[in-house]
């Protein structure tokens, strides 16, 4: 299966390991990601002000790119890109007056009709591949892992953009179960990591990280898995700031779930980009 793929900026820079591991894992599942020939920044945060159409143009332009290549669906890996594209698309479908205005403004582009379906890889794996199919392709038993699945905000909220129940999601747990990987019931799995506050409010984010990692540790987890490059950064890299302040703090690796998925499906560790992880989890994952 080939599917149009929108990567976004961060997957080409600090989160290259997310992209690499996703591509490698999907290959085992016979899915080829076809990157859009042209794409731009998704806009990063979905604009919430009712009159702000300007900042909704960037995500919509990407959806136009999908139509240009005759795509009807587009797959995202990054939770933020997913959320921004998804919400902009929903807005475009529902507000006819605004969508006409936006089409007029982008007069050099072909008109967009809101007809692209924005998918996140987790929903795609669940709904279009099927966890039962994934289970059949598992090659390696990752017995040493106890994963705290971390959804963050943007896969679950707001409700209209959610890929799962915002309060009691299960897609991560179900996926890991199909891989034979143990998970813990992580109460902070849908709490916010502090997001972009990490730029100017390091302490705020570090404190959040300390609380989350400590709780995950106390309930038996030894690794945290996410699908958002910003969550990954905040929860892993900010542990350095935590350690600076709390010397007895015990660090924990934070990985992209695709790195665990790839390992379970038999992808070699050299293809999963572990060198970009601050705390290299490959020994923990591969059990050596």
């Amino acid at each position, binding site marked *: 299966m080939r599917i149009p793929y929108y990567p976004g*900026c961060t997957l080409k820079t*600090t989160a290259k390991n997310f992209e690499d591991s996703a591509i490698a894992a999907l290959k085992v599942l016979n899915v080829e990601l076809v990157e859009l020939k042209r794409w731009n920044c998704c806009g*990063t945060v979905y604009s919430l002000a*009712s009159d702000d159409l300007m900042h909704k143009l960037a995500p919509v332009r990407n959806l136009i790119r999908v139509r240009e290549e005759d795509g009807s669906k587009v797959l995202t890996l990054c939770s933020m890109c997913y959320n921004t594209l998804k919400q902009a698309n929903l807005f475009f479908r529902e507000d006819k007056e605004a969508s006409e205005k936006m089409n007029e403004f982008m007069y050099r582009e072909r008109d967009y009709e809101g007809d692209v379906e924005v998918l996140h890889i987790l929903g795609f794996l669940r709904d279009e591949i099927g966890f039962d199919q994934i289970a059949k392709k598992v090659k390696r038993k990752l017995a040493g892992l106890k994963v705290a699945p971390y959804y963050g*905000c943007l896969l679950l909220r707001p*409700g209209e953009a959610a890929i799962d129940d915002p309060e009691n999601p299960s897609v991560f747990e179900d996926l890991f179960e199909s891989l034979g990987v143990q998970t813990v019931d992580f109460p902070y799995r849908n709490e916010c990591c*502090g997001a*972009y*506050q990490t730029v100017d409010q390091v302490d705020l984010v570090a404190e959040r990280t300390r609380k989350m990692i400590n709780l995950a540790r106390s309930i038996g987890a030894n690794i945290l898995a996410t699908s958002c490059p910003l969550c990954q950064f905040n929860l892993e890299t900010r542990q350095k700031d935590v350690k600076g302040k709390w010397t007895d703090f015990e660090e924990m690796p934070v990985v992209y779930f695709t790195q665990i998925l790839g390992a379970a499906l038999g992808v070699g560790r050299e293809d999963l980009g572990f060198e970009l992880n601050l705390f290299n989890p490959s020994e923990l994952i591969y059990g050596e």
Partner: protein
Amino acid sequence: MQELIDKVAELSGQNLYGCYQCGKCSGGCPSVWQMDILPNEVIRLVQTKRVDDALNSKTIWICASCFTCTVRCPRGIDLAKIMEALRQIHLRRNVDHIDIKKVAQGEINELPPIALVGNFRKQTA
């Protein structure tokens, strides 16, 4: 003052008078410990014509639009949009909330692009 209240309502698209101050938004807010006033108090200030106090609060800048309040509000009020409206009212006076030059000097290469773009989108004019 009424003009400002109307602006908050217009930009957010929310009926501020629907809030019955139950505090469920504040109870679940992951950033509430860093805020100077509770999220429900932000609505209260606007309801009672004290928009300036809301605009001058730290709270509206601590909010990172995680939508936890939005999905739990029993009265269906999207508080994340009210926070955004207040930030927008401030930023549209062409005043940045942060000084780009001062932030993240040491980390600029390490930070994910989405952190930087997101931050500047939310806090600069």
